[in-house]
């Protein structure tokens, strides 16, 4: 009984904390934008478009903060808003998705330069670049659902149940998509192991 009461109190506190987190838009953007930008960028393959979608996502989140019930993490909530915006974008540009987007896709070589130099040697940096390139290439060949779920799991660090709730998909379907995505990524990077 006491445990149940504690759990309820913790949930209420978490919900209040999350709601107050949404009130400070600057802090919200500062905390969540890098991860959200990465999620959107690699979901659509266009860095410029991703920026505007991310911005829209924060606007929507801020304007609709009253509807946030606090039953999931803010990160999960933001990701599901971003996911809806990505889907809208996909509906608009169904056929030129990923194809034209590659013009403004991120350059992994350039991105790898942002890695802290203290953390890795020159050799490992080259290996990291290669691995990243292969994962990026594998992502481009995944289906939309597989890519989104992969990015939610490994980019946003969301649990499988959270992903299922965010994209309104049965848990087993999420598992299947993720399994296939991982298989494809593994096949792509297999040559460099």
């Amino acid at each position, binding site marked *: 009984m006491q445990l149940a009461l504690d759990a309820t109190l913790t949930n209420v506190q978490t919900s209040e904390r999350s709601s107050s987190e949404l009130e400070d*838009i*600057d802090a919200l*953007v*500062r905390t969540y*934008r*890098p*991860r959200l*930008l*990465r999620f959107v*960028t*690699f979901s659509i393959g266009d*860095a410029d478009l991703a*920026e505007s979608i991310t*911005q829209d996502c*924060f*606007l929507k989140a*801020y*304007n609709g903060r009253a509807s946030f019930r606090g039953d999931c993490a803010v990160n999960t909530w933001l990701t599901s808003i971003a996911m809806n915006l990505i889907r809208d974008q996909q509906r608009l540009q169904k056929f030129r998705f990923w194809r034209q987007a590659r013009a403004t896709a*991120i350059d*992994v070589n*350039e*991105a*790898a330069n*942002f*890695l*802290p130099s203290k953390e890795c040697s020159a050799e490992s940096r080259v*290996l*990291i*670049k290669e*691995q*990243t390139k*292969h*994962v*990026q290439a594998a992502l481009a060949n995944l289906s939309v659902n597989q890519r989104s779920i992969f990015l939610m*799991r*490994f*980019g946003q660090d969301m*649990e*499988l149940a959270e992903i299922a709730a965010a994209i309104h998909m049965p848990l087993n379907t999420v*598992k299947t998509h*993720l*399994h296939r995505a*991982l*298989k494809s*990524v*593994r096949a792509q*990077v297999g040559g*460099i*192991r």
Partner: protein
Amino acid sequence: MKSSIHLVHLSDDQILNTLSGDVSAGVAAHLANCSICSRRVAEAEAPIASFKAVTLAWSERRSATLPLQPPAAPPLAWHRRAVMAATATAALLVGISVPLVRNEAPSAPVVTSPATATPSSTAEVATVSTPALTAAMQHKIPEAPAAVETAQTKPQDEQIARDNQMLQNIDRALDNSVESPADTYELQPISSQGPARERAKTLEN
């Protein structure tokens, strides 16, 4: 039991499930005791970890260069609505006041000299439109006190008279026949009794 765990290594599917976070108790127990399988999982995880690190470094850098654009707060939306309502009201008032001023225009004093009565189209237009225009421009209020009204109407009448005079002068200037360069050649307007017709009549006869 322990030896049976070590006997069979994890399959590729089990490793993928482990990566995805779907780890059963048996697989977890095996991984805890089997260095080979642990290494395989780590090897499978490495490219994803690299991807995570590189892309996060990129997005953090990119995000830092973007401006923090706070969204429009709800009071602003209310303010925008109020501005729109005020604009609509102002447009409505202007829309109502313009026909009122037009209706009032004929009752405004029109000063016309006898010369104005001449059938000149320009003068006619000026007589009709000038008082209305002047009244509109001077924002004449019908409810204004009589003293102010008389004070205002005097210069107004003078102005109207001056305008009418000016328009008449223009009319007169336009009516005056100015010597044309064509006159030096004694050109005549083509009439029905032109030389060609005369010649044709002669031939007929």
